[in-house]
């Protein structure tokens, strides 16, 4: 229970503590959270690799170095293994077809970041308007939209994505972007419900506040009120939800890739790399280990960052220590 006030009044001597807005307050709090900083750094690193991967990777992800594998006795190369007569080294080794693991990992980073973006894009594009409309118009529309979300929510996510994957696997849609588009959209379609519910909840409580009544009385249009007054106030929880939804999306894509849905050969996501490396796990664990580490690092980073954002933006902590 602190007894702080921070306002500045005209005509009174300035307060010794400077007044801060919500965002700078939250940002400072975030910066104090060491785990969130670490997570944030890795996230930025992953984004960097995702964007500049093709330029930075030593080889294209599909390029096979079969001669080296054969020279190795038909076995994948281990990290840093030097083959006679060859002038380069594969930092993380290769798979059984001689494809450089590091390059494939970097491509996998690309895929994971794309999953994150596309899936969350779908979530935002569907979830926010649905939630906002339900909250704003209330009544029958609210009821109707909530019933729809109930149904979508009841359908087990993984089953839906699997079915979608199986159904469209052979179609054009299923083959677009090496099978990835299908998975991305499917993941987004199953996750928008929580965002809709979140937005609806936020807007409902904001709607009751007086400034909304005031805006209406002046004659501001409904759409403007929602877009300019209500939604910006809900931005905090939305950002947190998007950030925390990313690990789930990456995990879903990895699991699906593992059981064979989504990404198609020769493209590889981290999940399919693990699946490929399974059979060699005893003798060549690097094929499973590095993709596994990559997945874990990505998930942990986004989770720490999301947790940090949530703590930083928690309205209950606003103004408090």
């Amino acid at each position: 229970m602190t007894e702080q006030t921070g306002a500045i009044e005209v005509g009174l001597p300035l307060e010794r503590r400077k007044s801060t807005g919500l965002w700078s307050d939250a940002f400072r709090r975030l910066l104090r959270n060491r785990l969130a900083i670490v997570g944030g750094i890795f996230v930025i690193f992953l984004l960097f690799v995702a964007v500049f991967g093709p330029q930075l990777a030593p080889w294209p992800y599909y390029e096979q170095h079969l001669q080296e594998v054969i020279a190795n006795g038909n076995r994948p190369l281990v990290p840093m293994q030097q083959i006679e007569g060859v002038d380069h080294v594969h930092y993380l080794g290769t798979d059984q077809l001689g494809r450089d693991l590091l390059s494939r990992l970097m491509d996998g980073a690309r895929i994971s970041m794309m999953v994150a973006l596309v899936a969350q894009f779908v979530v935002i594009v569907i979830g926010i308007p649905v939630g906002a409309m339900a909250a704003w118009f209330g009544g029958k529309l609210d009821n109707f939209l909530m019933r729809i979300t109930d149904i979508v929510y009841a359908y087990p996510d993984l089953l839906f994505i699997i079915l979608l994957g199986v159904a469209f696997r052979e179609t054009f849609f299923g083959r677009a972007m090496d099978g990835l588009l299908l998975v991305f959209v499917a993941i987004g379609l199953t996750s928008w419900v929580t965002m809709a519910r979140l937005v609806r909840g936020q807007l409902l409580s904001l709607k009751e506040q007086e400034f909304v009544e005031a805006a209406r009385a002046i004659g501001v249009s409904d759409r403007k009120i929602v877009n300019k007054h209500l939604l910006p106030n809900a931005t905090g929880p939305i950002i947190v939800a998007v950030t925390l939804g990313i690990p789930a999306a990456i995990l879903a894509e990895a699991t699906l890739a593992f059981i064979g849905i989504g990404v198609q050969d020769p493209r590889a996501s981290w999940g399919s790399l693990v699946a490929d490396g399974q059979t060699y796990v005893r003798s060549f664990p690097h094929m499973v280990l590095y993709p596994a580490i990559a997945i874990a690092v990505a998930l942990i980073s986004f989770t720490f960052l999301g947790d940090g954002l949530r703590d930083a933006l928690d309205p209950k902590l606003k103004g408090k220590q």
Partner: protein
Amino acid sequence: MAVSDPETPLAGTEVSDLPDSIEVETEEGRRLAEQLADRSRHARKLLEVRNLSTQFFTRDGVVHAVDEVSFDVDYGETLGLVGESGCGKSVTALSLVRLVPDPPGQITEGQIIFDGIDILKLSRSEMRRLRGRKIGFIFQDPMTSLNPTLPVGFQISESARTHLGLSRNAAGDRAVELLSKVGIPRARDRMGDYPHQFSGGMRQRVMIAIALACDPMLLLADEPTTALDVTIQAQILDLIRSLSEEFGTAVILITHDLGIAAGMCRRVNVMYAGRIVETGIVDDVFENSRHPYAWGLLDSLPRITDVRASRLRTIEGLPPDLLDPAVECRFSPRCRYAQDRCRTEEPELTERPGEGHQARCFGTEPGGWIP
């Protein structure tokens, strides 16, 4: 009601031993008269607070929430602690029972003597034995202060079982007694009900029952009616008053509402920015106040004689930031009578006309510039 404190003059003397009249002309008579006067002054108080300071150590600095506060409470007396939000009155009450959240808060100096016991020197388990048993607490919001997942009867009998060692049945009977005493009809039937099944006023009655469960000597009531309807407020205050009279419980009533303080208390402390700025008997403080802040408070009360549609009178400005307060009268930025001295020196509590009447203001001191 002085207790047999061996240092009290005439200790051990019964009233019946004293003569019917005293001849003050004689030496003996004069000495006896002095001793009697001394005795009433030395009689121990239920609660003596000396220079209590509680601070909150935050990332932005140290907040001096309670700054060298001193006051007494007599056995059976009702004392008011009045002030606006943020003045430190709630933190004072929490400090008395050492419930200030730590971190970030801490009692940094002072002495609290309760019934002769030095509270700040007690161990944690000794302190726990005092809480609930000797000191009861009523919190402001009965909806959040009651555990929503436990029946009301259980919550009342908890302290009786813990402190008085009563069996489950005996404690249950006592809880029923208390429930009906605080005015809940059909008490026995409602023992198993949950807080959400009661109305706001009834929940506060339950809180009162909990606070009084072990017949404490002191009741700390932190804004007990602020969260309630006006019509219910009077009932709850009456209840507190009648129960405290019946059991001889002293009460510290914390409120921002002067009307409530006037109706319930014999003496009142006005707090501002962590300090007591005026103290005295309720009549003196209300009718003959000697502090500009108190004037502002009294003035801001709407009166029935006010012209309709006139603006409410307010005190200009806001309370100060309690981070590292400057050396000055804390009210001076908002005081229309402030002079240079007020901004460079902080006044002490000094005497004013009236029993125990003190105020913290240079201007209203005898010889000061405020008439």
